[in-house]
């Protein structure tokens, strides 16, 4: 009998752990996903920075924003790959850094009213982006500066010295304004 008990306990333990793994898998709950697309934009008091009016098609706008971040990710990977090389491909590095700088220049316009978690659409953007826009914009400016320096790097040493600062600008903002996807 004890054998069965033990085996059952073991399987239960495995099952529980497996379930524990599945539960957090859907990145964020989307409770109001089927609710009517974004109601009247609930404008959060933004202190001093301009947030921008809600876009006509909120879902499409958020999809484009997501794709832009994916594109930054792809370009970061080009940089990351070159970091591991003794002789990085500086043409590829400059192209990737320039693309990131281009996205950074636009980034402050990517978060108009109505495109946050209250939209009911799956997003990793935290509400703090809208409630603390001044800090958020400062983080965006930081990325513009660091990626600008990176795009201006002319040799391997300059690139390798500047890459951590650029990634650090991404990270600093993510830590504060991006939801952990687990």
């Amino acid at each position, binding site marked *: 009998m004890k054998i069965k008990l033990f085996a059952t306990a073991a399987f239960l333990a495995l099952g529980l752990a497996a379930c524990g793994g599945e539960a957090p898998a859907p990145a964020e709950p989307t409770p109001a996903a089927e609710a009517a697309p974004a109601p009247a934009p609930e404008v959060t008091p933004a202190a001093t920075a301009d947030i921008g009016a809600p876009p006509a098609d909120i879902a499409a706008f958020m999809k484009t924003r997501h794709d832009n971040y994916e594109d930054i990710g792809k370009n970061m990977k080009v940089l*990351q790959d070159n970091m591991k090389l003794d002789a990085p491909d500086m043409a590829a590095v400059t192209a990737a850094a320039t693309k990131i700088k281009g996205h950074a220049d636009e980034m402050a316009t990517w978060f108009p009213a109505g495109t946050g978690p209250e939209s009911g659409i799956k997003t990793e953007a935290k509400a703090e982006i809208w409630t603390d826009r001044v800090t958020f914009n400062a983080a965006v400016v930081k990325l513009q500066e660091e990626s600008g320096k990176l795009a201006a790097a002319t040799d391997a040493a300059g690139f390798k010295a500047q890459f951590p600062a650029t990634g650090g600008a991404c990270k600093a903002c993510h830590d504060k304004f991006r939801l952990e996807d687990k």
Partner: protein
Amino acid sequence: MPAAAAIAQKVWDVPTRLVHWGLAIGIATSWWSVENKAMDIHYWSGLTILGLLIFRIYWGFAGPETARFASFIKGPMTVFGYIPKLFSKNYRAAFGHNPLGALSVVALLVAVLTQVSLGLFASDTDGLFAGPLNRHVDYATAEEITDFHEDFFNVVLALVGLHLAAIAFYLVVKRINLIGPMLTGQRRGDSLTGPSSGIAPIPPWRLAIGVALAVGLVWFIAR
């Protein structure tokens, strides 16, 4: 319970014990570091685990009797046959891994090896840290591997949980302490299985080859 007589038998050699506790510390460190976003620590703890596993696999062929796969991996008949023995009155602790525990050992080794291998290709969300082999896969593949690396840790945790539960079972139900021998290398008792002389010593050159193999392979991957 009979009082333990002064018989001590060497069951685990030093390298096997070091690898065991190194893996325990390495897995804990990897978990802690990723939760606290200390990715530089995560990178090195992962590579350390990889080195320990490479050594352990080599030691499964070159190490002493109780460390060898061929001596502790048994067929299904032996595994099932072990279960009634486990619950018999005169059960005695196995010399090394018992047939059922061997399954757990193999599962843990395979799972942790899978986990660190995935980590070699993974990257953090900021693109700031990446595993040493990340540059050999494209962005989308790396993203999928990273997600799987995150999810697969639950399998590792489940197996670690099962491992700890089994140790607790032997301690509480069977009154057999498995932790002591893994610390000291010695099993004490008045009635032991296996050769009373315990495991035979292994020539140092075999150990040296294993260390060189582990360090060399990790260096080759990380360079």
